[in-house]
């Protein structure tokens, strides 16, 4: 707990090449969150402290950072939850632009590669209201809660430690694909993409992404594992492989 109404903030300052942790003593009141402390520094001690934020209400997912080593939204992290000293660093997985701001444009490039929602021709031109049941939309709705804070991308071992952005789209885009695949009116099949470029097989189900999700989306259990199963079903199911083989033998005999 912060003593005497102040807290020490150690903040990453600089670029990837040239940086240091700078210490600031910041006044706190009841309810002060880490983002407030950062904005206080900006207004009073370091006018050019770069930080990305928007809503300050945990709805936009802009102010992601690593607070005492944990990937968090700064606007949702009360200072009182930490000790007398708090360190704030930018997300590690993405290139640093300056101070706490990272270049997350890779995520936007990945999103563009995912074939968008595609209803049937008939549905697309139907001027009448669609009928869908709540229980059918609920599965997809869970994934659509994502605020694109990219904390799951930040913490994913494949992206963070192995830097395999070339081989895996990351948890954020697994749930994006899941939300499309489980949309009751979508007609596309993205299984080949999952096996190929999206690289769902790269995930080793450590569930770190689920742990850091501020929207409490069950990324691993409800999205990645079902997507893995879907891919396995099509490509690696031994029974299916056998059936395929028998069928092809039969076809040859005929």
């Amino acid at each position, binding site marked *: 707990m912060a003593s005497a109404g102040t807290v020490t903030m150690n903040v990453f300052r600089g670029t990837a090449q040239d940086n240091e942790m700078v210490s600031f003593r910041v006044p706190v*009141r*009841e*309810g*002060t*969150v880490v983002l407030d402390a950062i904005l206080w520094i*900006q*207004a*009073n001690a*370091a*006018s*050019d*402290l*770069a*930080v*990305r*934020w*928007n*809503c*300050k*209400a*945990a*709805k*936009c*997912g*802009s102010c992601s950072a690593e607070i005492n080593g944990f990937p968090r939204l700064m606007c*949702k992290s*009360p200072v009182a939850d930490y000790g007398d000293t708090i360190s704030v660093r930018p997300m590690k997985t993405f290139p640093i*632009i*300056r*101070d706490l*701001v990272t*270049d*997350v*444009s890779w995520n*936007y490039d990945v*999103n*563009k590669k995912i074939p*968008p*929602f595609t*209803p049937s021709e008939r*549905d*697309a031109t139907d*001027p009448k*209201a*669609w*009928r*869908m*049941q*709540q229980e059918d*939309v609920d599965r*997809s*709705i869970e994934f*659509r*809660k994502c*605020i*694109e804070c990219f904390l799951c991308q930040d913490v994913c071992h494949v992206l963070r430690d192995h830097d395999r952005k070339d081989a895996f789209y990351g948890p954020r885009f697994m749930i994006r694909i899941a939300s*499309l695949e489980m*949309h009751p009116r*979508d007609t596309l099949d993205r299984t080949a993409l999952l096996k190929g470029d999206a690289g769902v097989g790269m995930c080793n189900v450590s569930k770190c992404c689920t742990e850091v999700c501020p929207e*409490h989306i069950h990324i691993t259990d409800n999205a990645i594992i079902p997507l893995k199963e879907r891919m396995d079903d099509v490509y690696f199911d031994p029974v299916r492989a056998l059936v395929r083989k028998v069928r092809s033998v039969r076809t040859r005999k005929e």
Partner: protein
Amino acid sequence: MVIGAGGAGQRAAIAAAQAGCKVTVVCKSLLGKAHTVMAEGGIAAALANVAHLDSWEAHFADTMKGGKFINNWRMAEIHAKESPESVRELERWGALFDRTSDGLIHQRAFGAHTYPRLAHVGDRTGLEMIRSLQDRLVHTDLVEVFMEVTVSSLFALDGRVTGALAYRRSDGSLIVFRAKAILLATGGAGRIYRVTSNSWEGTGDGTALAYEAGADLRDCEMVQFHPTGMVWPAGVRGILVTESVRGEGGILRNKDGERFMENYDPDRMELSSRDIVARAINAEVLAGRGEPHGGVFLDISHKSPEFIKQRLPSMYEQFLKLAKVDITKEPMEVAPTIHYYMGGVNVEAETGASSLEGLYAAGEVAGGLHGANRLGGNSLSDLLVFGKRAGQAAANYAVSSGAVRPIPKRQIEAGIDELLGPLKRPSGASPYKLQAELQDICTKFAPIIRTGNGLKEGLDKVLELKEEVRECGAGGPVGRAYNPGWHTAQDLRNMVTNAEALLRSAIERTESRGAHARSDFPKLDPRLAAVSFMVRKSADGQMTVFPVESEPTPPNLTEVISQSFQKYTPEETE
């Protein structure tokens, strides 16, 4: 060129590209972070899925009554008629809404809507809307998006808009855009107040850019206090508490446990219009009946925890995390917070065209639809309906307007001088300090209940501040790479223009109407029922305000407004 990538900007860009135009979208933040993402309650549209009695007529009448009749009636008519299709279109683009038991889009009750009318998904409808549009936008040909780029000035020549000057936040490099048509979708200016539900982006850029370029603004005195913002802890003051809490049955009580809305609007109670509920809370607190932190109680805990978590998931999370309050068990503490700008760029109803040729506006930055008070849910449908229309109209204009016009070098140089000015004044005042002063002025002198003297005093102070802002620095280091001090200095210029327009217009409106309440003129003045105050930059650079009589509402629509709509009873459907 579309400036702003919230709901209106994205919808407009899609429409313009579909009309065959090459579209550049420029936004201050990352894509999908715009203020639309914070909209919680839903999209108002007379789909009549829950209340079969609902109709565009009822929606139109509610909107006009809520706006105290200074709305642009034609906009209100178009909005009411086209909203249902705009929601269905969004669904065809992949948006998923909560459903009724027979599988249609569910609609919830909201303040001053006669029928349950808000299509929603939990309490994160804005997020659903922006993701659906975003997915559509990035897969639309001919669209290029510039993220984290801020426009600092518009260029116009011979009464026509020609382009814009902007800077990249990441490295401070400058871009000159040449465009045949420019569409503003920049949102409101809530940041000129201290306690607001708006993000840092709500600095009124669009209204200020349009004003400086020569377009007219209207109804700038009409600023909405949302009745329920968070009050405690102090660090979170102002964060929005969605009206859906009341829509789903939440009850407002003062410290004595009294359901005080009975004294202010016994028929509609908590679901009265926002101006009335906000003033009621204000009055309770002033009369000493508020809770210790200066708000009142909002209670939904009589509903089951499952119901609350399904219908209001982000409110549950927000209070639990930020205030350590479990709303399934305890009441929330709430007080009014600045939320929405009803006024804005004066536009033509059908096209969103401003008074400056080639300049269009849609969404919160445009004025007229909401009149003196906006109904909840009408903003999201506003974005879709008028984003589409303005996008199409701007594209049509661009196609027919001939070649791109050159921008004179001296204009570009003047724009750059202004933009880089703060970096050249290392000893200039801190923009953060001046911003805080501006917020204090607006909060103190243009509050929920205003007085003529207070407004005049506020105006004097804003004009003094305007001089200081002209000479302000970046607050410290003068590098151009991601320097928020420099960015704040840019925003500040726009904020001052908006504050001046607000105070000047508020002084002129000598009555109380909708969101504009004056203790020295506590009554509605029928002579001002068809009057809007316009703001224009005169030839000598001064801001002028003048009244304009609006076109009379045609008899068929007057009839619609006076019609009495059958009251909704939940038994009617489900």
